[in-house]
């Protein structure tokens, strides 16, 4: 820490850190200085001049946001000179402002309005014509009203510096300057919603919640978002027991002051017309609405006939810790040991070699301190936008980022990336590791017995990595992404990732896919040891399946197979918030549970932080929290220790168990032989589309408008070889499953791969997300 220096503000002396701008110092001291363009997480533009203050010995007032503090500096924020400057700036800013606060969504929470009231003159002297700016349509999430814009450029800087893609810009100059995309198009950034918050005026407002309620009519509830695995801190604003909008709540260690669009706009899904509001029972193939009593009695009857060996429970990793815990308790009480939440993982070996809890391995905040980050099988930008933001931050602070992927992922910062077809990813990693060991980086003991094949030319990449390593000062992080976790050879990839991390003396971490993936993993450690990790085998003799907020057609690795098995199962009990045509088909009983925001519970985020999210609205219809439903079921079946009075009691019990089962750095029990894939033919890449990850997001309409039409993406060379022209139809086939899709030429893919997004309507009709696929020109006949 450098020595503090003394400055004087409004006649009082303060000790402050040197090197900071005056506005940072006054902010820390709680002295108010008005501002528009300054934002603590953005670069300094100093273009609005609203922060002018008087500084001793300076002729003109100075902008506090662009004036560094200096020892002995004397500042006045409220002197005649300062006030004069502030009033003049305010008047100037309002010259072209429409002053349409009564019809502006920002009214009541507008920085311009507030500062005009505090620092402005009572009356305007401006009599002339005001300018009018046309509003560009920038997509379904953000409404524009550009006449209100004061050109502070916060949104433009946000795009360049935080979102990493510059989409908005200042077009024209002087009094004709306007903020726009120029070519009308929807913003592509997965963090775009944050410009609503950074915009100090009503120029950029949230489109889905526009004109729903006034800022002062809403009730703010502090809670935690339930999609990204970082557990972003948010405020949910409600009006009339309905969620109007979601905004970030500052937490420097988790999400700073940002949230992803997915966490911001997902709430729309809660009001979907597909919400199940009453219990339902299928009788003679007909669905009947019944009372809870009847539904639970029926469920009880079904469960008493359950054959444990042939039964399974599938839970969403977006469920709360309490729900997952009770789900496991009740099913185990019935003798069912096949309980799974990692529904996209297919590698049976992974359960043997991977740690029970796959988590980030370090605090989220520390990502930005790393100097060398290596991503394996990850489109982290779309998987976990906020973790990607931290990597971006690290990169801006000088870190170098490398990636080994199955396609050239479009990152929003520079990345040294190698991409090969899925079957080659393991051999690519092996080539890298051998390359590094040839360069003198010793293989750790457990790696020396492995036979590594060197099939790929990774020389340049390895050289780059070594150069970066030389400057990394031991701050190295290897991260396994969602695609790696869904890979058929996940165990091998994890073993190799660990070898690589050891070679580089770095940390190894996992990018957890869902809001409570880490929590759900952790719950499995509470089960008796021999029961852990039994992979679910969906054979044709399934007896009972219990679902907890899972939609198998979207949430599993092989929708076609899972759906057909569920249809063959003797009985399917679905505890769910949403109806779907598939559910109608395979389920026997539907017990409506409350989704996030209508239910309280704990989420464990990527770094292992426990956060309790309190319910913010009343349950819809007769939906009940899943933990209550499970409690009753458990009680009826005399499962011991199911008698909880309230959610806190379960949370408390779980909290006490943490000490006995703490999170340890994720360590892999290395595989002893690496599998070699000699696959020829086409392979599918089935990454899940970012807005199709869970049952709530899938029903959030504004986000859904951003999901592109599903196409079969193929490398142009492969496409030419197969005589497939863009936008012609192709029949894709995986075993019995087949579907017609339009062709899309995509140079980012390796040859001989077909990329079809997972979690979509189209992929619901297909088989393995990562596996063999066949193509035939022309539509399905």
């Amino acid at each position, binding site marked *: 820490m450098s020595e503090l220096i003394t400055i004087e503000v409004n006649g009082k002396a303060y000790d402050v850190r040197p090197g900071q701008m005056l506005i940072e110092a006054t902010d820390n001291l709680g002295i108010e200085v008005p501002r528009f363009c300054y934002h603590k997480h953005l670069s300094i533009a100093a273009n609005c001049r609203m922060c002018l203050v008087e500084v001793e010995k300076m002729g003109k007032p100075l902008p506090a946001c662009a004036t560094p503090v200096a020892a002995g500096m004397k500042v006045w924020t409220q002197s005649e000179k300062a006030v004069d400057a502030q009033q003049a700036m305010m008047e100037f800013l309002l010259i072209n402002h429409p002053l349409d606060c009564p019809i502006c969504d920002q009214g009541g929470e507008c920085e311009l309005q507030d500062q005009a009231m505090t620092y402005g003159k009572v009356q305007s002297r401006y009599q002339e014509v005001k300018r009018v700016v046309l509003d560009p349509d920038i997509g379904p999430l953000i409404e524009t009203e550009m006449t209100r814009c004061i050109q502070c450029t916060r949104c433009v800087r946000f795009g360049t510096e935080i979102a990493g*893609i*510059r*989409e*908005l*810009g*200042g*077009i*024209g*100059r002087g009094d004709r300057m306007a903020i726009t*995309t*120029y*070519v009308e198009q929807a913003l592509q950034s997965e963090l775009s919603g944050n410009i609503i918050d950074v915009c100090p005026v009503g120029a950029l407002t949230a489109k889905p919640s526009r004109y729903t309620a006034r800022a002062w009519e809403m009730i703010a509830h502090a809670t935690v978002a339930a999609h990204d695995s970082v557990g972003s801190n948010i405020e949910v604003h409600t009006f009339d027991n309905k969620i109007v909008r979601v905004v970030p709540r500052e937490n420097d260690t988790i999400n700073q002051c940002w949230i992803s669009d997915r966490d911001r706009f997902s709430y729309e899904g809660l009001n979907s017309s597909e919400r199940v509001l009453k219990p339902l029972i299928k009788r003679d193939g007909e669905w009947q609405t019944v009372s809870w009593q009847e539904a639970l009695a029926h469920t009880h009857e079904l469960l008493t006939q359950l054959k444990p060996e042939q039964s399974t429970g599938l839970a969403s990793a977006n469920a709360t810790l309490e729900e997952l815990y009770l789900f496991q308790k009740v099913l185990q009480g019935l003798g069912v040991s096949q309980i799974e939440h990692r529904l996209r993982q297919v590698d049976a070996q992974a359960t043997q070699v991977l740690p029970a809890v796959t988590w980030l391995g370090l605090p989220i905040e520390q990502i930005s301190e790393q100097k060398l980050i290596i991503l394996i099988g990850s489109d982290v930008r779309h998987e976990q936008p906020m973790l990607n933001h931290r990597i971006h931050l690290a990169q801006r602070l000088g870190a170098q980022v490398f990636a080994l992927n199955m396609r050239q992922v479009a990152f929003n910062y520079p990345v040294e990336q190698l991409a090969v077809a899925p079957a080659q990813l393991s051999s690519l990693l092996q080539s890298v590791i051998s390359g590094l060991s040839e360069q003198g980086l010793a293989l750790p003991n457990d790696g020396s017995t492995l036979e590594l094949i060197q099939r790929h030319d990774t020389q340049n990449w390895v050289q780059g990595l070594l150069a970066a390593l030389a400057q990394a000062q031991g701050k190295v992080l290897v991260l396994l992404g969602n695609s790696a976790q869904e890979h058929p050879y996940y165990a091998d990839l994890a073993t190799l990732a660990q070898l690589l991390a050891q070679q580089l003396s770095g940390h190894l971490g996992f990018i957890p896919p869902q809001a409570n993936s880490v929590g759900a993993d952790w719950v499995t450690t509470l089960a008796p040891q021999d029961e852990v990790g039994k992979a679910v085998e969906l054979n044709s003799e399934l007896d009972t399946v219990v679902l907890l907020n899972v939609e198998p057609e979207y949430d599993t690795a092989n929708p076609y197979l899972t759906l057909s098995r569920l249809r063959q199962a003797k009985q399917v009990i679905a505890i769910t918030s949403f109806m779907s045509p598939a559910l109608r088909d395979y389920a026997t009983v539907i017990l409506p549970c409350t989704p996030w925001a209508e239910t309280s519970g704990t989420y464990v985020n990527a770094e292992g932080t426990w956060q309790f999210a309190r319910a913010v609205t009343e349950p819809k219809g007769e939906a009940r929290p899943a933990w209550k439903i499970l409690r009753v079921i458990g009680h009826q079946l005399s499962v011991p220790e199911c008698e909880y009075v309230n959610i806190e009691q379960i949370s408390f019990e779980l909290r006490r168990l943490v000490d006995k089962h703490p999170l340890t750095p994720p360590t892999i029990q290395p595989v002893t032989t690496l599998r070699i894939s000699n696959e020829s033919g086409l392979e599918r890449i089935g990454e899940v589309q970012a807005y199709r990850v869970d049952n709530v997001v899938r029903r959030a309409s504004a986000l859904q408008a951003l999901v592109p039409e599903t196409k079969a993406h193929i490398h*142009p*060379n492969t*496409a*030419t070889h197969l*005589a497939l022209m863009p936008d012609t139809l192709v029949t894709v086939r995986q075993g019995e499953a087949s579907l017609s899709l339009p062709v899309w*030429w995509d*140079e980012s893919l390796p040859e001989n791969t077909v990329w079809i997004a997972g979690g979509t309507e189209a992929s619901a009709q297909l088989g393995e997300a990562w596996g063999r696929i066949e193509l035939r020109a022309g539509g399905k006949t």
Partner: protein
Amino acid sequence: MTSPVLKRKSDLLTEHERHEIEHWLKRYPPEQKRSAVLAALRAVMHTDGYLSTAKMDAVADYLSLPPIAVYEVANFYSMYELDPQAAAKYSISICTNVSCMLCGSDQIVEHIEAKLGVKIGERTPDRKFFLKNEEECLAACASAPMMQVNHVYYTNLTPEKVDEILDGLE
């Protein structure tokens, strides 16, 4: 079927434009490609007479810039035309700012409009002349009134002198 060549946005650039951009790129450090954007747009103006969005995207692609960064520059400087209707062999800007106005620029405007049969902001049907809307003082006040034809300044104008200049243009 021949091997496909995916269309890149920069494919639209002509040989001459590429040559010009490359020439300018040499003057800047390799990581500062954006420095060449002014020159690149000028090259495009030279061939097309205006900047189409497709060509601006081509420049962005060629220089690895986000397209908006190119749009910003193109919209900032008045020497770039964005309207295809402004593309002409000769673009004429007649200064009508204070000094020129006091020295009779209104008369020059009237004369040229009558001579070419088009108003300010319009182009002659043969696409030879475009009368550009006034921007600001063109910094030749000492020899007012003046006009600029493409890159050339003509000063101390009189209607006769204007005739001579315009008639002399191919």
